[in-house]
């Protein structure tokens, strides 16, 4: 088993296109399941391919355990990799696909058969051994691809968006299988996806990336609760956090659509910078009932009926500023398109970000100072699960 260390890892591509990497530092512990998460072109696949040895870094080092593997070919890194399209050879049977690599490496025949049985058993592929990929369902192919990556007994297991070709049901099922496999085998795993649900459910730690840089590395729970910056805040959650940029003078303007508790306003006005950025998750907004330290007056633009709740798109009611907000409201709240409503949120659910650096500065109040609780939160995982349901 192997720990992986990336130090100042850099990858530049010729030409203008390509998601270059801009100094990645990351330590992945032995046996850890790490998910690289980010939008298309953020560099997550590039990072994975650098670890696999399919690309060569232009700077920095990659270590497996203690040894630097920069110059080591992929084939010598003892890696198993699963690709998005499975890359099963259509003209070979399941058995041949599984054994092709072992045969090429000159593994002894008896050993090959032993491992084959093991894998077929583990992934319940026994009945399919003689079939060709086109005779398999999507999930079965996925399992064969997993099997092929595992049969070489890799010390590092890499997966590049392995579930994105599956339909929703299968995806969920395979997610569980992958989680199970990892629980059993405890192979150091790096998993690339743009799907936060996969990331939140599978990962020990999530690495959020954007534009070739790591934005945040943390556990799923903390990613949601304490996004390191505006990008992460907006990226995590469905939909992401509303982040409003409010000029300081707007806070004291009585005609402003914003109302903020005076004490809080005071502390903000005293801080540096000309504006403040406040973030509120859509699920943390509610129709104003009088008790909220932050109120926003806005106009309803669109209402999406999602069954469990309404997803309401609003526009801040101001000439000076056009800002869109999404709120998740109760199905029975009775708003209609065109209504001007006032939304509010308790201070401990409001995040504050630096206007310049966009870094997270904390919340307007601690949890203990909570004034109103909107949702009953019982247990660490509740947010994740809830988000999952909302998908």
């Amino acid at each position, binding site marked *: 088993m192997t720990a992986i260390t990336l130090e100042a890892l850099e990858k530049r591509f010729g030409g203008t296109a390509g998601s270059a990497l801009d100094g990645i530092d990351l330590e992945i512990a032995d046996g850890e399941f790490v998910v690289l998460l980010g939008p298309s072109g953020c560099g997550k696949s590039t990072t994975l391919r650098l670890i696999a040895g399919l690309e060569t870094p232009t700077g920095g080092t990659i270590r497996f355990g203690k040894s630097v593997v920069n110059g080591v070919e992929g084939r010598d890194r003892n*890696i198993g*990799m699963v690709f998005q399209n499975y*890359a099963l*050879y259509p003209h070979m049977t399941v058995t041949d696909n599984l054994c092709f690599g072992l045969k*090429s*490496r000159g593994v002894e025949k008896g050993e090959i058969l032993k491992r084959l049985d093991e894998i077929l058993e583990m992934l319940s592929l026994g009945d399919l051994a003689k079939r060709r990929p086109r005779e398999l369902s999507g999930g079965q192919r996925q399992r064969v691809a997993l099997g092929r990556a595992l049969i070489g007994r890799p010390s590092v297991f890499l997966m590049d968006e392995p579930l994105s070709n599956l339909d929703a049901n299968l995806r969920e099922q395979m997610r569980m299988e992958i989680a199970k496999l990892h629980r059993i085998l405890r192979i150091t795993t790096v998993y690339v996806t743009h799907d936060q649900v996969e990331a939140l459910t599978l990962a020990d730690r999530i690495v959020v990336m954007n534009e070739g840089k790591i934005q945040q590395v943390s556990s799923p729970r903390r990613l949601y609760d304490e996004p390191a910056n505006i990008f992460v805040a907006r990226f995590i959650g469905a939909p992401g956090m509303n982040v409003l940029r409010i000029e300081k003078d707007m806070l004291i303007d009585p005609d402003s659509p914003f109302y903020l508790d005076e004490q809080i306003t005071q502390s903000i006005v005293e801080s540096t910078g000309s504006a403040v950025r406040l973030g509120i998750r859509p699920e943390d907004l509610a129709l104003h009932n009088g008790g909220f330290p932050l109120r926003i007056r806005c106009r309803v633009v669109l209402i999406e009926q999602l069954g469990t709740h309404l997803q309401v798109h609003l526009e801040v009611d101001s000439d000076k500023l056009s800002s869109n907000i999404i709120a998740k409201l109760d199905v029975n709240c009775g708003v209609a398109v065109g209504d001007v409503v006032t939304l509010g949120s308790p201070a401990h659910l409001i995040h504050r970000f630096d206007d310049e650096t966009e870094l997270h500065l904390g919340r307007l109040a601690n949890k203990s100072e909570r004034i109103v609780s909107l949702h009953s939160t019982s247990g660490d995982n509740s947010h994740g699960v809830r988000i999952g349901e909302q998908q």
Partner: protein
Amino acid sequence: MSGAKLLSLNFRKVVRTLFVLVVAIGFSFPLYWVVVTAFNTKGGVYSIPPNFVPALHAGAFRYVLLHTHWLHYLLNTVFIAGVTVLLVLITSAMAGYALAELNLRGSGLFLLLTVGVMLLPTQALLIPQYALALHLHLLNGYAIQILPFAASTFGIFLFRQFFKSLPREYWEVASLEGVGHLRYILRVSLPLARPAVITVALLTFISSWNQFQWPLIMTQSHSVQPIEVALSHYTQTFEANWRKLTSAVIIALAPIVILFLILQRYIVAGVAGRDGGINL
């Protein structure tokens, strides 16, 4: 749809089918006619109006079959065409693979070189090519009939395109598993490229079989000449004897026609896909 309209539609369909029939018969008839002539009676060839039904007199055919070294010319042709096909497949697959899978500096130049060959007028190059063959002592051998055709623009393009259509991950998986390029080509790329292999093999075989001017110029002894050149010699030997001449024609035609009839589906598909592969 009104009855009259339906009628006119059916009528048009009939007319169309008739046209198709006429075209198909027009194209096939000369080949039928050669059979009629070869198996005609001695005087029947010159009868006016002509006989349209074969008289099935095999005398002339038997004579031509037995009194000339057809087997020998056929073997020459098959040998030349066979080796050419083999070499074309090898060079095309190799180059196609390198162009599709490896990011080589200079592959653009290579492609230009490949397409350029097609644009060079074949007639204009005959003289320097002959001079080259003379200098290299290749005249009158099998090598000069094979080597210049051992690489094909069409083959390279088709293989390149085919290999490019294979997901890149196929190779990446293989490379992570420690599979080398050659093993990968043999075990994965080529087996998957079967349609390309068949198309290139068939078209190369046909064009090699039908070579005439090249061996006519480059060879002198019958021991290495293909059937087409031999046939052109026999037009002198058999002169006015149309039964013998057409018998000889049948012998030269039969193998390629039979091959075509068996594999026509692949050949037609291969040719039809050709302009998709190489657009000028």
